[in-house]
């Protein structure tokens, strides 16, 4: 398997990876925001 051709996506790499990377960022970002929100809540409880 040639990774160069894989990432090139038949010359459409920008569009394919532009879709996938942004999707990954917003989904993982949502989970991180949620973890943060919970952490803030728990920190206040310890006080």
């Amino acid at each position: 398997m040639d990774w160069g051709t894989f990432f090139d996506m038949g010359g459409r790499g920008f569009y394919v990876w532009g879709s996938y990377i942004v999707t990954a960022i917003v989904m993982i970002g949502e989970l991180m925001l949620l973890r943060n929100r919970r952490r803030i809540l728990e920190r206040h409880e310890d006080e």
Partner: protein
Amino acid sequence: MNWLKYSAPQTFYPLADTLVPLFAWPAAILTLIGLYIGFFVAPTDATQGEVYRIIFIHVPAAWMSMVIYLAMAFWAALGLIMNTRLSFMMAQALAPTGAMFTFVALWTGAFWGKPTWGTWWAWDARMTSELILLFLYVGYMSLTAAIEDTRRADRAGALLAIVGSINIPIIYFSVKWWNTLHQGASVSLTKSPSMAKTMLLAMLIMTFAFWAYSIAASLMRLRCIVREREKQAQWLNEAKE
């Protein structure tokens, strides 16, 4: 089984803590399987080449954007009818995840539209109604956040969510009712799908992954909302004393 008892925060927290990983792990594993099939097993499309592989996130995200909205409107309606606070909280817990998937559907649609249609965006019925869906989510979130009295915020938000659900059949049937730039459904309940089996399989696995993700994320959020409100009530009580 008495489900109502889970609406009490003391019983709800441990339940949420058990449920979240039960959905989060399948979400992660299904995503890996779906992407593997989508990129390494599914063949190159005869007409579109490789760029069609955006479908494995575009269609599941678009489905989730609609399903989550319907779930949100359902909980909102149940809250109004039964006057159960947890229902309103469930509606609120779903909204940001729904908005996120609506954004993903629009974004990946633009990145698919540019190389195949030559444009990032068109004001066609499917895309415009999906954009309206994003505004409905954002409107619901800002409305419930703007009203300080949670009771009133819940009710006002619920009303908006219910009225806005008219938009869902409009999105779904838009490609049938109007002559749109957006293509018709590749998968429908009545016809056999017009795609290769492995393509369809990857898309369905990604859909299950997004379902599991949505449930995990909204449960995490629901847990925070319950706790935040519980605290607010505590403060109010302490202030009164």
